[in-house]
């Protein structure tokens, strides 16, 4: 009974934090750029680059370009879920509230990832505009399921990045250089088979890679076994990143409560 009450409280905190983040993000020019403008520009470029406009190519570009928006906002907005509080001077208060810090950050990143899914809607609509007809998703059921798993997979990844950026400001300064490497390693707009073999393990540890593989497979009518495998890998990465997140947040709270150095830049 006590656990159920606690779960309800956590859910409420997640929803409230998500709502606050959504409201903030709606007026943020960079968020608008990341989830609408940039993916649409990349999609437009890819449409014009297309050698022959087969339906599989179009849906591949729609999904891949949408995923670039998802990653860009996860990196720049989700990554600053904690450091943003430090800049606005609210981190100390957030750490001192009875609601656990990681629950608040889950709410914030969940809002960010859900909002970023509109990148895919934007590129889908653009494809309809450019080609005069909306592209077809070959396995809509599997696509919906993969999309459902993509959300926690990205949230779990953001939950690693956000505390890392706070604990290591030097890593955060490399943020601008991290956007395209993940586009490349995750195979958003080309298969990772085009990359040298030594980069493959790097792709495997990225949840966006498994999300892209599952979504590309489902949208282009790929093998169901491969889609299932990719979704299983997403679940595994959620578990592993969840455990890592717990350690990182313990470190943050230690810095805040014992060392009192959390708000130092």
């Amino acid at each position, binding site marked *: 009974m006590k656990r159920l009450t606690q779960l309800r409280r956590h859910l409420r905190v997640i929803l409230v934090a998500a709502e606050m983040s959504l409201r903030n993000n709606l007026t943020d020019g960079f968020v608008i750029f990341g989830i609408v403008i940039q993916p649409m520009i990349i999609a437009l470029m890819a449409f*014009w680059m297309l050698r022959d406009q087969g339906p599989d190519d179009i849906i591949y570009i729609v999904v891949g370009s949408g995923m670039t928006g998802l990653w860009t906002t996860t990196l720049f907005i989700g990554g600053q879920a904690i450091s943003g509080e430090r800049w606005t001077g609210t981190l100390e208060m957030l750490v001192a509230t009875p609601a656990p810090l990681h629950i608040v950050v889950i709410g914030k990143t969940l809002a960010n990832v859900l909002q970023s899914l509109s990148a895919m809607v934007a590129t889908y609509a653009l494809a309809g505009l450019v080609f005069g007809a909306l592209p077809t998703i070959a396995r809509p059921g599997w696509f919906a399921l993969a999309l459902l798993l993509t959300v926690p997979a990205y949230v779990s990844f953001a939950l690693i990045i956000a505390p890392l950026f706070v604990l290591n400001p030097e890593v955060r300064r490399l943020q601008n250089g991290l956007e395209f490497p993940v586009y490349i390693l995750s195979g958003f707009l080309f298969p990772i088979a085009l990359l040298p073999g030594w980069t493959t393990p790097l792709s495997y540890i990225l949840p966006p890679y498994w999300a892209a593989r599952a979504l590309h497979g489902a949208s282009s009518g790929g093998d169901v076994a491969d889609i299932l495998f990719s979704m299983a890998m997403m679940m595994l990465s959620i578990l592993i990143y969840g455990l890592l997140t717990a350690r990182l947040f313990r470190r943050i709270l230690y810095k805040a409560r014992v060392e009192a150095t959390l708000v130092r830049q």
Partner: protein
Amino acid sequence: MKELLRDLGLNVRIFFQGAYLSYLALFAWIRPPHYIATKVVGPVFYMIFFVLMGAYVAGRNDPSFYVIGNAMQTAALSGVFGVSMSIDGDRWGGTLIYLFGSPANRLALFLGRAFMHILDGVFGVIIALGWGLLIFGLDLSQTHLPALALTILITVFSTAGMGLMLGCLGLITRNVMLVNNTIFFLLFVFSGANVEIGSLPGWAQAVSSIIPLTRGIAAARLLIGGESLAAVGPLLWGEFLVGAAYAAIGFLMFRQFEIIAIRRGTLEAF
């Protein structure tokens, strides 16, 4: 005559001091790792991304098209972001009011903001071409290198012209980074860095013809392919004129915003 020379000396000093200080001011918040990630490491990754995307989506297996296009696109990092941030940085830093209150020559002040970024941009393009040589084996054996250097300089100048204009927008809007980012990504498409200009729809080709980079990228591709400076002369003149036109529009906007801001007392209103 003596007075004229004194004024000229003063304006030259304002130009270089403003150039140096506004560039230095960016490093109050941009630290070396940030600079390296953005200007040195960043371009190599977007170059790799577009080379592979081109190979898969467009079926083009010659990386030099994308390597040259994206190396030249690096000019816009300094030209668009650096220059515009130097202009609107005065507003955010609270120094705009003093700047407009000073009797300093406005043209020297305004153009001075671009000077260091042009040098920095040339350096950035050279680094990006170096990545192209190292990773994709870009062949420069047929290239007239001084002509390529001139092309790079003119292209960076041209993007800086656009940056000066965008910086002025930063004086009247809060969302200048949204504008800058959008322009930077649009340049990837419309400048011909990643898509052949000839394969764009008519309206997009019209856009290409009035933006910086388009002619600079075309000239760089021709020069690396073995053409002479004389052959790319018209393209370089065109690129220079486009940049000069944007800078002139930017200066007119700068003067106009100054007059409006002083009249309305909204110089630092956000």
